[in-house]
């Protein structure tokens, strides 16, 4: 069982959360035509890493907040969790 440490509520069973996909920031200049490839990358292409992945989680059966986690995609060990503001 994976335990996830919600930065607001503390450690809970993964069943309380919804996975939100790997962290992938939006292209910075959405109107720049040169950013088409960046949008394809943002929308579809994935790192799909084997290793520690930075990813979104949503505490749906708890505080209802989105946050980031660094989780190993094979051992499932969650190394860190934090709010997006703290990631900047």
């Amino acid at each position, binding site marked *: *069982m994976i335990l996830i440490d919600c930065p607001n509520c503390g450690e809970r069973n993964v069943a309380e959360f*919804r996975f939100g996909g790997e962290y992938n920031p939006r292209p910075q200049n959405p109107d720049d035509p040169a950013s088409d490839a960046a949008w*394809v990358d943002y929308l*579809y*292409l*994935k*790192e799909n890493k084997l290793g520690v992945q930075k990813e979104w989680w949503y505490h749906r059966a708890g505080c209802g907040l989105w946050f980031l986690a660094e989780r190993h*995609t094979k*051992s499932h060990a969650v190394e860190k969790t934090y709010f997006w503001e703290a990631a900047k």
Partner: protein
Amino acid sequence: MSLKLLKQGLNGSKSLTPMWREQPIKDRYDVVIIGGGVHGLATAYYLAKNHGITDVAILEKRYIGRGGSGRNTTIVRSNYLTPEGILFYDESLKLYEDLSQDFDFNIMFSQRGHLTLAHTDASLRTMRWRAEVNQLQGVDSRVISPDEIKELVPFMDLSDHPRFPVMGALYHPPGGVVRHDAVVWGYAHGADKRGVHIHQLTEVTGIDVEQNKVVAVQTNRGRIKTGTVVNATAGWCTLIADMAGVKLPVETRPLQAAVSEPLKPFLDTVIVSGTLHFYLSQSDRGEIVTGASVDPYTSYSMDATLGFAEGLAGHILELFPSLGKVRLMRQWAGLCDMTPDYSPIMGFTPVEGFLVDVGWGTYGFKTGPVSGKRMAELIATNRTPDLIAPFKYDRFFEGRLVGEKGAASVGR
């Protein structure tokens, strides 16, 4: 065949020959296929059989059939939603119908019929839509009422007691199940017989690209020169594509399945419920073979989870309360390469000589034959066959996604 079996039985199987041989590894092949699943093996088989291309190696990290090809729940059907999807899946189903003959080896294809249950008005509507598109493409598929379902599956609770009562079903008579190991071994045997080399315990660790062209692959057994590499590694495909510098729209998710202890025969169709998230069939040995949706987060782990077994059992009991005392015997997981439009990615990539046959998600066992046949054609002619053109890698850059989610997300 049966006389041969009897003889083998009496002489202690002494004269049995292996289905494929271990060959010395060469330092150069015309075509190198990475991944010894049904897709890689079928591609090699049709390269040799249909096009006479036999200087081909399959490189498999562990043993053939170790991936999804040996872990799936063996459902074959062609009642998909999009016209391009239906044509493609139907060619595979037709190939499966002839495969035992083709191999001279029984793959035990049982076309017992496939039922997708509707529990809501919305899903009934999608099924009518699917039935119409299916019929237009000549696929035997129709919506049936609960009375007709009762005839086919008398054990299922069709009353209004379940939380989501059954309102109808999409019935697809030619759908069914196949023995997956037999398909893997049949392709391996046929490819080996025609000169293809199957190298197990051979892991690809790098791909050498020069001036945007593939020139070799690196393995734990040395460097192998080649101009054509096929990535057929399903759940691991991103790791291989990374080696060639190609980024894929793929997310790896585990898909779990389970079998029960053997029961007397009571179920002779495949049952799928999208709303309750489960599907089941009964194997020739009497076990209930069952599964659900992919795990709710990305992962490269093939461990089974208790949460999955609990959820699955609860859903099955909604419709089959009589199975309450039946014990689960085994549970396992395989890795699935999920794409955003629930459709595969086949053919050329921006790197010359680096081909992909990936994105098989939870539905790629049934497409082994057609993918192998068409990827072989693509390699032999250096041009994309029309049937698989909708699934090209470039579609993500052109905004031409295929949109098969409605028919592929739970039904397998």
